């Protein structure tokens, strides 16, 4: 599915501030993998995602997505295959466009024909169906400007937009961290439901250790730009928060 080999990232090379953010990281992701990544600040979690999404380029290393070499592919072209949701709920949606316009734009991902009509009436039923599954009543607010929605609603909309055309890989960068506990829980359950319903391989960064244990079938612990632990389903199921905390303390 995703094959990253020897990814090496150095920030500010050849200066006093030189820092290795990723240290020759190898990562293989299988189809149906839902991978959680934990680790202290500066461990390289977000850098890892940035390399995968193409936001930053690794000094060396290769990256394959479904046997396609995407090492040098431009970010916006990768985004046709890779969905990403950030911590900031404001980042994933355009505030002055309506819910419908945002969805229409996202629905063109990777298959856009620019001179077609912006909004297709026949797509609306599908949009409504996807929004209704959230249970937030967004399906009745298609003509509202997104800026009028709450942070939780916007993040829910971002989730739908990122998976409107199921991507080959979904990157979740602490996507529930800025939400209140109840909304965070809702979004998390919805994320899991969508991931399994559409069979989307996913990677999730989180600082919430119970979330890291509860969701996904694989758990990575990162430190200083390296993956120091890679646990599978069984190992993960036996793990307790206390043990994970312990790992944290030892390794960070």
């Amino acid at each position, binding site marked *: 599915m995703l094959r990253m080999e020897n990814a090496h990232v150095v920030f500010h090379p050849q200066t006093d501030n030189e820092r290795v953010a990723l240290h020759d990281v190898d990562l293989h992701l299988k189809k149906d993998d839902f991978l959680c990544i934990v680790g202290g600040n500066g461990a390289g979690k977000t850098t890892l995602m940035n390399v995968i999404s193409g936001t930053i380029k690794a000094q060396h290393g290769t990256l394959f997505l479904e046997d396609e070499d995407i090492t040098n592919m431009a970010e916006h072209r990768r*985004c046709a295959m890779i969905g990403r949701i950030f911590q900031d709920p404001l*980042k*994933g949606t355009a505030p002055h466009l309506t819910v419908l316009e945002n969805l229409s*734009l996202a629905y*063109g991902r990777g298959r856009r024909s620019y*001179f*077609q009509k912006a909004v297709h009436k026949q797509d609306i039923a599908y949009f409504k169906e996807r929004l209704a599954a959230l249970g937030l009543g967004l399906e009745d607010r298609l003509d509202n400007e997104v800026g009028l929605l709450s942070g939780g609603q916007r993040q829910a909309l971002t989730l739908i937009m*990122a998976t409107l055309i199921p991507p080959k890989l979904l990157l979740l960068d602490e996507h529930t961290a800025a939400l209140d506990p109840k909304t965070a829980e809702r979004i998390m359950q919805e994320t899991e439901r969508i991931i399994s319903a559409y069979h989307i391989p996913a990677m999730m960064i989180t600082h919430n250790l119970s979330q890291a244990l509860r969701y996904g079938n694989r758990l990575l612990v990162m430190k200083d730009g390296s993956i120091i632990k890679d646990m599978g389903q069984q190992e993960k199921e036996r793990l307790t928060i206390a043990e994970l905390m312990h790992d944290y303390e030892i390794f960070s």
Partner: protein
Amino acid sequence: MTALLGACELGLLMAVMSLGVFLSFRILNVPDLTIDGSFTTGCAVSAVCSGMQMHAFGLGMAVLCGALAGLITGILQTKGKIQPILAGILTMTGLYSINLRIMGSKPNLFLENTLFLQIKELFPSSYSELILILVFLLVVIGILVLFFTTQLGLALRATGDNEAMVKASSINSDAMIILGLSLANAIVAFSGALFVQYQGFSDINSGTGMMVIGLASVIVGEVFLTSRRLPVRFLSVVCGALLYRFILTFALQLGLEANDMKLLSAVLVIAAISFPHMLRRRYHA
């Protein structure tokens, strides 16, 4: 009456230009100073072509040259990583020399024959100029309205709203910025060309202050007519441009000199932007 008619004509001409400003300032969210240069480029190209009796061709060429100016600013901004305002200033500065070259190193050109004179011959009426300008304005608005019903138009709007989201939707946001600036400056140059055809001469300094006039039209328009719907917002720009011109005409009638107009423009923009905020602060205090 003549003053009013003249104000309407000039106001509608400036409305065309202001639509270009609206595109870069409101849709793309970029204060683009290329406009001062590209307006003159439109003037110069149109004047030179009219000198060769190719009036309509001149309008088309002006559009192309304006688009090219916007293209350069867009590339400076996205690929050259130059701050948007600076990128515009650089292109505008460079255009001054280019505009002079286009006009054969003369600071101004006078035309014996123009598109407007020809139309006036065909349809002798005191309103023929006004109607011709109105037709051109409606064509520009029509094209814009159509354009913004496409995926491309939507992508352009989204780029000014949230660039990260646009990238995430697998759209090349750099290309959108370049396209938007080209379109904006094409419209501005077109209005410059119309301006020359209307007044019968081209001056190297015609474009100075156009950005401010455009801003004034956009902002004054929004004070009176706000909407989320794009066609209404275009209309609001037109109203703003007309209103702004009426204010200037009124000031001239009151005895202000033409030379004071730039100062008045600047004050008007400052007032339109800052007054609402100042008033609000007083009420909340």
